[in-house]
Every structure is written in structure tokens, then in C-alpha cells.
């Protein structure tokens, strides 16, 4: 069973922006798209651990600020000619609040 926890109001993140969530096992980036969907990914590009939360969000993807790798927010897969994947975690918006699945925290601590 999913156990969703309330993180913050949706407005806390700019459209096409991102904010970080600190966990015991490193930072997770929560992204908000122009369509007000939210996605949660590890804040590290598979290339050189670039902070994805600082990248430019476009469509359902983010471009890493260090070397322009483009990563799908839906799958965490690196797009185009590059290869790699970023861990993704369940996230959703309900009544204007950002919710994350606590199971993701456990999965991170188990990892």
C-alpha cells in the first residue's frame, strides 16, 4: 500500500522549476512541469553527478546544467545519444499539495 506524505504546496516550486528534498541518503529533486505535473528523481546526473534540480525543465525532461545531458522526468532515462538512467520515485499532486510516497524513502535507505 502506498503511503503518501504531504511535502509542500505546489506553488513552492516554480512551473518548469525544481526544488530539493533532503533525505538521509542524499538529495532528491522534485520537478514541476509547465503542465503542473510533479516528478521526483535523484539529484545527480549519471554522467558527472550534475545537480539536476538546477537544470532547465522542458516538456517532460530536464537538461543537466553541467554538460547538457537530457533526462526524462518520467522514466529517468537519458535521452538522445547518451546512456544512463536516474532513479525515479512516485510523486503526485492532490488538492494543490505535492505528495511523495514514503516507500521511496525506504527504498533509498535500503539501497
Amino acid at each position, binding site marked *: 500500500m502506498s503511503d503518501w506524505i504531504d*511535502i*509542500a504546496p505546489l506553488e*513552492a*516550486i*516554480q*512551473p*518548469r*522549476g525544481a*526544488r*530539493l*528534498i*533532503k*533525505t*538521509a*541518503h542524499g*538529495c532528491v529533486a*522534485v520537478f514541476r512541469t*509547465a*503542465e503542473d505535473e510533479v516528478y521526483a528523481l535523484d539529484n545527480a546526473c549519471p554522467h*558527472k*553527478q*550534475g*545537480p539536476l534540480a*538546477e*537544470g*532547465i*525543465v*522542458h*516538456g517532460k*525532461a530536464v*537538461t543537466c*546544467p*553541467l554538460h*547538457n545531458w*537530457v533526462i526524462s522526468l518520467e522514466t529517468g532515462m537519458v535521452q538522445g545519444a547518451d546512456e544512463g538512467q536516474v532513479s525515479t520515485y512516485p510523486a503526485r499532486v492532490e488538492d494543490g499539495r*505535492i505528495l511523495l510516497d*514514503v516507500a521511496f*524513502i*525506504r527504498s*533509498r*535507505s535500503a539501497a
Partner: protein
Amino acid sequence: MSKKLIVIGAGMASGRALEHLFDEGADYDVTLFNAEPRGNYNRIMLSPVLSGEKTYAEIVTHDADWYAANGVTCRFGEKITAIDRAAKTVTADNGDVLAYDKLMFGTGSNPFIIPLPGHDLDGVIAYRDLEDTELMMSMGADNKVVVIGGGLLGLEAAAGMAARGADVTVVHIMGHLMERQLDEAAGYLLRKALVDKGITVKCSANSKEILGENGKVRALLLDDGTELPCDLLVMAVGIRPNIALGQEAGLAVGRGIHVDDQMITSDPDIVAVGECVEHDGAVFGLVAPLYDQAKVVAQTLMGNEAQFVQKEISTKLKVTGCDLFSAGDFADGDGREDIVFRDPARGVYRRLVIENNVVIGAVMYGDTADSNWFFGLIKDKTDIAEMRDTLIFGPAYQGGTPMDPLAAVAALPRDAEICGCNGICKGQIEDAIAAGHTDLGAIKATTKASASCGTCTGLVEQVLAVTLGDDFVMPAAQSVCGCTDMTHEDLRRMIKSQKLTSMQAVFQECGWKTSCGCHVCRPALNFYLLADWPIEYQDDPQSRFINERKHANIQKDGTFSVVPRMWGGITTPDELRAIADAADKYMVPTVKVTGGQRIDLLGVKGEDLPAIWKDLNDAGMVSGYAYSKGLRTVKTCVGTDHCRFGTQDSTGLGIKLEKTLHGSWTPHKLKLGVSGCPRNCAEATCKDIGIVCVDSGYQVSIGGAAGMDVKETELLIQVPTEDETILVIKAVTQLYRENAKYLDRIYKWLAKVGMDWVKDQIEDLDNRQALVDRFELSQSVYRHDPWARHVDEQAETYQPLANLSMEAAE
């Protein structure tokens, strides 16, 4: 038994005719005579040979192997002296008599030499063949050359000689250059471009006499008494069909050898092709109709039906840096209207002449990318009533939403000419693609399309793209990014002309393929919009790279570097103490002095940024914009304050400039330097904008770089006062903001628009003031300290959204 075909003249038309003949599998035994001691080459490419852009070897169209493979007997350097039509034989100048079944005239034309007194002096030549070209090439640097004739050929000769370092004067009898192809306004722009290349142009000038000394040319005398000294005089005033041999053989001739629609002369066994013919009252000097004739004559020799039809022709000038296109008829006349588009800022001029809702003439200067489309309208006599309002903007602006440029190419018929130099039409390229030649190099190699002057390369690529679809990857730099097919230039034009003031409007009107752009187009769009509409447009931080969004430089480990502004490189002990305190407090691992004389605090954590900024703000410092595509620093030397050589207060000027310009967003980073004397201790001459103070004032130069490319600045202007210096710099900064492509430094932009154009813009005082006013308007919005704003308004966004580390530990 093969039939015997004798060809007289190895020019472009006869060469092409032979190609078609062999392509058709003709069973002819061909003997090719040529008075020039060589085979077929592309004569219209002599201009690039003259200017040094190509070698002779590159313009040969048929080499010895080709002749051998097709069994052509070559008799180069030999003339035909007589033709006996009754016996069907020709006589060569060595006395050989050869029989023919069919004879082809391809004798071309002779340059017209004005019979001025002195025209037979040594050093007076026409510009016609390789010998002329080689003589001209040998007369390059430090020689004085006069070219009589301001038409296509004369100007190409002049530009080529100028490129070889000669001192060139063009003398033209008419009031403006290329008067047969251009109207006065375009002629003026062309003249200006040539003058900028260092060529002297004299229009409305009548030549009277060629003066000599010891049998060699010395000067040209005009009838107003002007003497133009020269070591070489090139006459490029026109050509005359070479009909002497035909006339002697008793063929019907007028201005040229008469031919019918099948290219047959008055003798059914003799055909003629190229510049030597007269068809329906017309003679021909441009290549496109010659190639059409070559196709027809080959079919005729094969015994097939074919018909030569005269078509509209267009002209392009092959002078590097002069983008010029002309087609059709643009004379004034009753019932004719014209639409003129003039953008002096970009040096672009377009004029369309319309009669009964049909375009009958077009002149384009500066931007000829759409010339094929306009030419198509002329050829097809398209009714333009529906698109009249936007016609002048070209194919991208038709039908409400901009048309995909590929759709325009897709709509071209198979016989639309793509490559004018080689007469290649769309169908031939499509056939080559179908045969497996799927990139530009292969198309060049197999069809010769775009293998000559190269102006059609973009079109060839578009044909590839249309034909291959997704299999063809358009070379980069064509469009801004994958979200659009438009180039940066198109986009800037759309934003200005359609008054697009928001990113959504651009996405909508320009047919963006993605919902909200990408990391490539959005920063560019954001800049263009704020540069063009500083009041209407709301800056979009989410379309900025992280450095600009967070006002600090991101480092490889995700930390940031912070650079406080030190106006003109001046600081104080108090400021230094505040910086040292901040470095201690936020555990800055590295403190470094930058190349621009500022102090860089490297390794600051993202969440500490608002706090360190606040501390620095409290000590009186503001953001140094070290992260921006905008004004970075103004580097200075000490000038008159302390230096015994300093001629002006360079530090003071640097401070004033930095206070004036800071906060201004530009297409790329902008760095200035002010040196107090020509010893140039501030290294001002490798900055984007450099000022060198001299006794008499201030030398402002632009376009330096010391990055991926190292460039020295070029002098823009020298002005006497500090105030005027600041005005000039504001104006040139605004000019750069309004015109350059995003991520082009000034030197790259300068290479595109030319220093002379920038000078003209700045020297025109009204224009200078207008630029300054627009700069100040923009600065009224953007000149502020982003650190203070973020500390006040959004410091919390720099902190984590939530801290779940405790829950994780449960």
C-alpha cells in the same frame, strides 16, 4: 558504323551537350576541336579562380579520362578554318580535312573591345578565358588596375583583382552598377559593398582614350579630363556571339547563328548551341538557357523530339560578401507597382515588381535566401493577390502561420533548377537520392549540384531532407534547435515584424514542435524578447541557464562561485575585509583574483547564496554578474592617477562605463577594457569593446576576444571626450543586442555584418542617439542588483523544500 560528329568549341554548352548525348547512349564518333589549348571547364567559375577561392583544376568539368571513356577525339589548340557544307567536311588549321555526318557549332562568343584609341596597347585585355585570368592573377598585389564595365563580369573581375591586393578602379558609363539587372537602390548598396572592399567606383564615366608608354598601357583618360593610372586595363563591357566561321560557311546569321527550336541552323546537318546562337531574336550570355539548349541539341542529334523554350532567367553575383539576386523585369511602366522592403540595419533590400497580381521582377540584396521562391513566382506567373500583404517577407510568412521552408521545396516541380552553376534540377537530385546517394557530399559528387559556387547548398540539403524525411539529418546551425525549423535570424525577424512579445506567442506563430521549447531555444528566445521588447516582455528565469537563474557560477561539484562587483577594478580595505569575513563565515575553499580584476569566492553551497550575498550587500557590494550573458567587467589600468604615461583617467572612465552598462543583458558575455595610453596595460585591444586613451581623446575599438578565438579589436571610432565615448559604447552595445545571434560574441557578429556597417550606424548621430535611448529604456528595467532582490523576495527557494532525513532514520 558510327556516325561522325564534329564539335567546334569546348565550352560549357557543348560540353553539356556531349554529356547528354552520351547519357542517351548515342552512337557517335566525336571529334572535339577547341581553339583554346584545353578541354571543357566551367567558365563562369573563373571569377572564384581569379579571387583565389578556387583553382583551375577545380573548375574543369571534363578531364582526359572522361573524353577517353567516351571515345572523344580531342584536338585542343586547333582551329577549324573552313567548312565545306556540300562535301560535309571541315578543314583544320594544319590542313587536315575531316568528314562529318553532323556538325555542332559551340563557338561561343568574343569579348567586345571598345575601339578606344590605345585599345591595342600591351596590358589591355578582356576578361574571357583562362589566359586572361592567369595574366590578371599575375598582376595582383601593388598593381593598379582599371576595369571598364560595371556589369556582372566587370565587377567579378574587379573584386577578384582587389582580393589579390591590386588597387582597382571600376569605370562604368551608366549611372549605377549592373543597370540591366539592378534598380538604383540595389545598385547603390552594391556600390557601397564594393567600396568597402577598397574598390574605387566611378559611375557615369565616359572613357576617352587609353594612354600608353613604350607600347604599354599607362592610364585611362576620361572625357572629363581625369586620368586613371593603371598597369592593367580590363575591358569587360560585353560579349558578341562568335559567328565568323558560320557566316563564311554560308549559314543564316543575325547577331548570332540562327537556330530553330531544335537548335538546327539553316543547314539541317549543322546544329549550334550556346552563346554563338540567336534564337527567336535573342542571344544568350547566362548559363541556365545554355544548358537548356544543350539538352535540346542532344535530343535533336539523337533524332528525338525536343524543343528549346526561352524562360525567365535570374542572375547572382559571384563576389564574396555581396549577396545579390536579380530576375525578370523591373523597369518602371504603366500598371506596374512595386513593393520595397528596406532594412538598412541589416543591409537588406528587396524589391518586387508586380503587374496584374503577378510578380514580373525581383531584386534582392543582402539576404537572398528566398530568391528561388520569388524566382518560382515569376516563372510560374503565380497569382499573388492572396499573399500580397506578406509577400515581401518571403515563403516563411505566407498563409497565416509560417510555412515550413521544407514545404516550399517539396512543392517545387521536378524541373525546378536547384543549382544554377551546373544546371541541375530537382528531379536529377531526387534520382541521385533514389540511387542511394543520400548526403550532400554524394550529391555533389554524382550530380555536381552545389559543387561550384555553393550558394545552392542549403537548397540541395532541403531537397535531401524532403526526399529522405527522417533519414536525413540536416547539418547543425541551420535551425535554432529541434523545436523549430527556423534560424536565429528568421526568429529575430519574426519577433520584430510580427511584434511577438511573449514566448507563447513565438511558439504559436512560429509553429514550435514542442510544448515549451528546450534548453537551447528558450534562453535564446528569452534574450530576443527582452532585448526587443524590454517594457512589454516579462523576463523568464526558468528559461535562463542556472548561472543566470541563481546569479552565481555553477562549479563541477554543484557548488557556486560568487563575485562581487568592484567598479572599474577599484576596491577598498573595508570591502576586502568584508570579502575576507564572508570567505571565513561560509567556509569558501578558494579565493581567486579573476582575469577581469575581480575577486572570486569559489565553492559556495547553493543554499548559502542568499546569506553570503546579504553580507556582501551590507558591506556595499552588489552582484558582479560574473555569471551573465551581459556586462561582466570593465578592466582598467591606473591612467593619469598614478601612471607617468597615462593620458586620460582610464580608471574613472572604467567606473563610469561599468555603472552605466551593468545589468544589461547581451547575446553573449560582454567584457570591456580601458587603457590609459597605447601601452595598453588593461589589454583593452582583446576585449569585446576596448578603449585606448590617447592625447587627443579616446579610441573605441570592438570585436576583440581572448577565448576560444584570440582576436584583436578593430577601431570603431575615435572621439574627443569621455561623454561621447560613453554614448558610443552604449549605442554599439545596443546595436549588438538588437542584431546579433544569441551566443555570438561581438567579433562573430562583426564578421557577419561587417565593420563598415557598424561604423555607419554609429557615425549617424541621429541613429546613435536612438540606439542610446533604446539602451537606456531597457536599462530602466534591468539595471538593478539581483542579489538584493533574491535576498528580499525568494531566499527560501534556495533552501530544500523539505528535510526527510529524520524520517528516513526511523
